[in-house]
Each structure stands twice: as structure tokens, then as C-alpha cells.
């Protein structure tokens, strides 16, 4: 019956979230055996210089709560910590520092830049764009605001706007960032090969660029090479990025995905050893563990489920849907659940990886019609990617039986 089937589909979609029914949060509490037992390790000690500096600024603020410059300095420091640690709590602390400035900082470009960054971080993209524009209205040479806008436009797939920001900021920023910005847009809009060549030249010429930027450029080059079906070149770019000696989980994740695609899961196990704490990397570990039949694979999958559950408990917290769909598809091997999540995800997140997981789920679930939105994007954007193109042709060849999602009345 329609209603029942409808509910069942819903339940399938929530299959992952449903694991939270056995509440992660309500496991049995315990009393540690003795006072010396360490119950929690902090990412940074209070004696860490970066923490001490911001703590001392906070003490000054207690004496001068109206000092706008001090508040902005504190927020900046917290953003630095967020950048270094990848921990959203610091963004929250930064937001708390500038919140009291809301009604008296209308002429402060730094306030608007920081507010835009906070808003971006909670995915309030339109508000963030307004704030970042205000920063430039006050200070037309604030390249940071332009760079953040370019990033937001890219996420929103508004490529013309992104291109304009890249052009505008080019004379104000590191040449490698300018080249990366424009290569990034071009690679998404039908100019993959020339964009790849340009970025390659820019990286070779970038002697003094910050290593973080070099790492980013090399990782993007590796991805472009993959899209161009040049795995050897991709691997060389990955190696070059890793040699910079900076720990970057996005690089590790991209390289792990590359190795998984190349059927080299054993190398992923080595690359990601001890990285269980990162959600992004735990998924790759679970996949590699499954492929190598490692004894820890089941425990990793269980941990991953718990983290999806914890994330979905926050309402509207849908940041993990792309990974959740991939997890359902590749670890749980539940194509229907994966398709439900991927289709839901694609309503809000329309980046290439979101399209890819939707296409793969639709194929696995034998429901090619469900991939239509992703196929339409692929046609219209002229996004070049050999793998996506192959998925598209497989979908086109798949029998159109039971076309509409689900099939049952």
C-alpha cells in the first residue's frame, strides 16, 4: 500500500540515522577507577602559545568589553585556531567575540569580513555574501573578502561570479592563489586541460608561496590529472603535496580515494593509520579495511555509523550526507538507502562528488531515472571527468524499467 511503502522508503533512507535509536549519547556512564585516570585529552594545552595569547586577550577584554579592535583580534586568533585545528568550536568562540559589535561596527571592514566567515561556516551563504560585500564597500582592497566570496560562489556553482572575483583579487594576492582561483573555475567549466596546464606552470614558478597554498595547488592538480585519466601524473602530484610535510586531511582523503580507485587499499591502510578520529578519513579507513578484510573493519564501520547518528541528531545538520550515501553504498551495500540519501543530498549540495555518488547509487539501485538531476548538471556544466562520463553512459544504457524512484505504487 502506498502509505506503507512510502514509510518503508523513508525508513530505509533513515536507516543510518536510525542507528541512533540505540542512543550513542545514552550509553552507560561510569565512574573512573582513580583520580589519576585521564578521561579526556585536549587538542591544545592551555600552555600552548596560541591558546595563551588568546587567553590573555580575553582577560584584557574582561576589563575593556567595549574595545572593538580587541574583539576583532580575538576573533581572528580563534579563526587561526579553527584553521589549524579544523575544530568548529573555535569558529563559535570567534562568533561570540564579535557578536556584541553587531550594532556599532557598521564602518569596520574587519568586522564584516569576520562575520561573513562565521556565516559561511554555518552555510548561511547568502548572508555571508552580503557581509563580505560590505567589507569591500568599506575597504575596496580587502582581498580576503574577495577570496571568500570566490569560494562561496564556487560552492554555489555560480562560476561567472566566481571568475569575476578571481580577476578582481588577482593583483592583490599571491600569484599562486590567483592562478589557482582561475584554474579552479575553468576546470569546472569546460576548460579542464588548459586550466591544468596553467596551474601546473604557476605551481612550478611559485618559489615563495606559503606551503599550504602549494599543497592545495598540488592536490587540485592531482584531481585534475585524475579527471584527465592520467593516474601516473596524479600520483606524482599527490607525492609532491605529501612531501611538503604538512598534515592535511583533505589531501590524505583525496589520495586515499585515488588509491581506492586504483585498487590499492593496502596502501590506504598505511597512509591513514591512526586517523580514526577524523570523520573524513575514518570513512576511507572503513572502505580500505573492508577491501583488505582487516579485522578492524567492522569496528570502524560501527564508529562511522555512530558519528553519522550524532551528526544527524542536530537538526538540519546534513553536512555528512554525501559521505553517508557513500557509506551506505560501499560499506553497507544498501543501494536503496544510498540512493535515498544521495538524492536528498543532491537537493542542496550539487558538487561533482555529490553528483557522482547520486549516479553510482542510482546505478546500483537499478533506478537510472533517479540520477536525472546529476546527468542534467553534467550535460549543462560541461564538467569534464572521465569517470563521471563513464557513469553517465552506463546509466543511459541501463534498462529504464521501474523508472521512477522506488518503483512501487
Amino acid at each position, binding site marked *: *500500500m*502506498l*502509505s*506503507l511503502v*512510502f*514509510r518503508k522508503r523513508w525508513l530505509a533512507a533513515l536507516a543510518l540515522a536510525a542507528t541512533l535509536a540505540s*542512543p550513542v*549519547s*545514552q*550509553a552507560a*556512564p*561510569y*565512574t573512573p*577507577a*582513580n*583520580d*589519576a585516570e585521564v578521561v*579526556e*585529552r*585536549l587538542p*591544545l594545552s*592551555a*600552555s600552548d602559545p596560541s591558546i595563551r595569547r588568546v587567553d590573555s586577550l580575553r582577560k584584557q577584554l574582561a576589563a575593556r568589553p567595549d574595545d572593538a579592535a580587541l574583539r576583532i583580534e580575538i576573533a581572528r586568533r580563534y*579563526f*587561526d585556531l*579553527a*584553521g589549524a*585545528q*579544523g575544530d*568548529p*568550536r573555535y*569558529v*563559535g568562540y570567534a*562568533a*561570540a567575540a564579535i*557578536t556584541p559589535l553587531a550594532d556599532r561596527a557598521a564602518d569596520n571592514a574587519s568586522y564584516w569580513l569576520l562575520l561573513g566567515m562565521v556565516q*559561511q561556516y554555518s552555510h548561511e551563504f547568502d548572508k555571508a555574501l552580503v557581509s563580505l560585500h560590505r567589507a569591500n564597500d568599506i575597504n575596496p582592497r580587502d582581498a580576503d573578502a574577495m*577570496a*571568500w566570496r570566490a*569560494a*562561496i560562489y*564556487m560552492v554555489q556553482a555560480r562560476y561567472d561570479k566566481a571568475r569575476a572575483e578571481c580577476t578582481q583579487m588577482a593583483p592583490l594576492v599571491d600569484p599562486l592563489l590567483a592562478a589557482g*582561483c582561475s584554474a*579552479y573555475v575553468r576546470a569546472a567549466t569546460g576548460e579542464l586541460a588548459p586550466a591544468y596546464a596553467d596551474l601546473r606552470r604557476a605551481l612550478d614558478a611559485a618559489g615563495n608561496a*606559503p606551503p*599550504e597554498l602549494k599543497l592545495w595547488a598540488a*592536490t587540485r592538480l592531482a584531481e585534475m590529472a585524475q579527471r584527465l585519466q592520467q593516474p601516473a601524473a596524479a600520483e606524482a602530484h599527490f607525492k609532491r603535496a605529501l612531501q611538503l610535510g604538512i598534515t592535511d586531511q583533505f589531501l590524505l582523503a*583525496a589520495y586515499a580515494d585515488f588509491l581506492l580507485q586504483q585498487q590499492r587499499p593496502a596502501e590506504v591502510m598505511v597512509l591513514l593509520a591512526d586517523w580514526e578520529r577524523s*570523520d573524513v578519513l575514518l570513512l576511507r579507513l572503513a572502505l580500505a579495511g573492508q577491501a583488505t578484510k582487516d579485522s578492524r573493519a567492522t569496528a570502524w564501520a560501527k564508529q562511522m555509523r555512530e*558519528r553519522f547518528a*550524532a551528526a544527524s541528531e*542536530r*537538526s538540519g545538520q546534513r553536512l*555528512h550526507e554525501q559521505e553517508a550515501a557513500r557509506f551506505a553504498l560501499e560499506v553497507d551495500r544498501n543501494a536503496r538507502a544510498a540512493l535515498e540519501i544521495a538524492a536528498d*543530498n543532491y537537493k542542496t549540495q550539487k*558538487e*561533482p562528488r555529490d553528483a557522482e555518488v547520486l549516479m553510482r547509487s542510482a546505478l546500483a539501485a537499478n533506478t537510472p531515472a533517479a540520477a536525472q538531476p546529476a546527468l542534467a548538471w553534467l550535460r549543462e556544466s560541461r564538467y569534464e571527468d572521465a569517470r563521471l562520463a563513464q557513469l553517465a553512459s552506463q546509466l543511459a544504457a541501463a534498462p529504464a524499467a*521501474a523508472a521512477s524512484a522506488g518503483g*512501487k*505504487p
Partner: protein
Amino acid sequence: MSRTVLRLLLAMLTLVFAGLAQAHKPSDSYLTLRATTGSPEIVVRWDIALRDLDYVLQLDRDTNAAITWGEVRQRADDITRYATSNLQLASKDQACSWRSAGPLMIDKHSDGAYAVLSLVATCPALGEAVQARYSLLFDVDPSHRGLVQWVAPGSSAAQALIFGTSSASQSLAFAAPSAWQTLRQYVVEGVWHIWIGFDHILFLLALLLPAVLVRRDGQWQGVESFRSALVEVLKVVTAFTLAHSITLSLAALEVVTLPSRLVESAIAASVVVAALSNLRGKTASRRWMMAFAFGLLHGFGFASVLADLGLPQNALVLALVGFNVGVELGQLAIVAVFLPLAFVLRASWFYRTGVFKGGSILVALLASWWLVQRLFDL
């Protein structure tokens, strides 16, 4: 741009993970509030991340980045005071008072260790609801959330609420839903489920289509009077209602249970049979018997919907009656639209051939497809 902020920007410009730029979970606390019928007390379990407590209370005294149980235990009173001063419960404008109901403990969540507080709030006057005002950590981290499971008195299921900076004050409905609210809720569900349950509607329509026709000289002709059509419709609808009420009740009370795939397949088959019988050249004088026999099946189908909805254990009969009444009201609404239309059109070629025969064929085909799907779980 500082180098670390550059990292944030570049992380965002990493399309692969743009949706997942947050590699860590933001700050949340977890609350379970439980009230019992007739008691002025609300029992609370509150899990707060040690990292968050460290940020506001500096638990890590020796600043070695490792929080020991001793460092937590010695600050238990501070932690409890900090927590209770940031959650105000009030009933009828009178504040509830906090007391500790057990020693502070530790629990591991997916993102680290949490202090577990066992508390009791005693409320002087009980009203319809408890007003809750949550302010934990909001002053230092506006992205913090309090995730609440609220168990109202007499209720077995928890209700989820989220406290955020823009939803810091919320009302916890103290009374379990009243009998009237339960009844109304299930009536609405019943109406809704007959309307979106296409197989039930088609079954009913297949039986009702011939009600405005009569077989004469080997031909279908329109009935003479509205009254005879009405009587026929009433017979069918009443038989269907009686039958599915019986099985719905039996299944909902778990006296009889049948596998859902079997039931769903049989329901699809009943639609096929009902539609095909219209195409036979004879008057099925005993359509109400078919309505009764197959109605028994459809009742099992409704029961599985009701099972999905969940039945309140303390108001089982009420919910059951409400759902049944809703189904009948939904059916009557369909009949009220169908009958006058069909009666007006009954003598036309459009009705006798297009709607009656063509419609029956379509219904039979569609239901056959459902039958295949359900049998073979396509």
C-alpha cells in the same frame, strides 16, 4: 590573510569536501528530562562535553592538555552549579529548584568524554507545561546546541527538542496528550491514510462503479432512481467498513498477525478481482459480500499502517477507534464526490463504456502490476 585562515579558505575551495569542511563535530550537550505522572519532580540526565567545561571552568589545572578524573571530580560542584544556573525550569511562573541526584560520572560520546550530571528539578506547581530556558555556553559559543529528549508523564516515547541561540526558551508539554487530542490525531491519520492509500480507493471505486448501473437485456443501463443507487452504495460501504474494522482491531490488538507481504499481495489481488468482476456480463447482485470478504484483508493493511504510526499504550482503544472513524470519514468523502457525479453521468456512453469498462480494465491492469511487484518484491 594569515596562513592558517588561508588553510580554512583552501579547505573550502576543495570541492570534494566542501560539504564536509567541518572535520569535527560542533559543541552539543545532551539532556534527557523525564517527568512522572503525579510527581512534582523532573529527573534529568545531562551530558556536557569535558572540552566545553574546560573552556569555561579551566578543568585542566596543570595545563598538560590531559584532563584527569581527579581534575573533574574536584570541580563537580562547580560543574553542577554552572550547568543548573544555565537551565531554568519553571511551571506556572514559579521556578523549579535543582538538586543533585547522584555523583557526577563520565560517558564517552563519539566525539570525546562528557561529564554526566544526574539532577532532579522540583517544581512547586504543576501546570500544562514546563517552561525551559537554556543558556549553556551561548555566551562563549553561539553555535552550541542543547539536544533534548523530553519524556512527558504517562508517555513512553521521548520527544526531541533542540535549544539553540534562537530557540533558547521552549515549552515542555507536561500533560501527555489528552484523550481528545489523541482521538483527533488518529481520526486525521485515518482520513489521510485512506486518501493516500490508492489500493483501498481503487477497490472501493471498482465496487461502486456498477452501483449506478443495472443489467438489462444484456446491456448496462443507468438505474432509474437515485435511491436504488444509494442503497447499493450503502450496502457495499457498510460491508467493507464492518469487515475491515474487525480485522484492523484484531491485528492492532495483536490477536491475529499476518505477514505484510502476503497481506499486501492479497490486497492487490482483491482489487484485480473486483475490477474484473465488473467486466463480466452479469450483475453481481452480491457485491456487498465481496466487499465484506475482501474488506477483511484490507483491514490487515490498515493495521500495518497503524503499527507504523505507533499506538499509545495508554490510549490504545481510543487511537484504534479514532483511526477507524477517520478511515470511514475519508471513505464517505470519496463516496460523496463519486455518487452524484456517477449518477448524473450514468446513462451516457462515456460512463458506461469509458468510465465503467475502461476504468475497470485500467484498475485491473494497475492492480495486477502491484500484485506482481508485491509477490516478487520488485
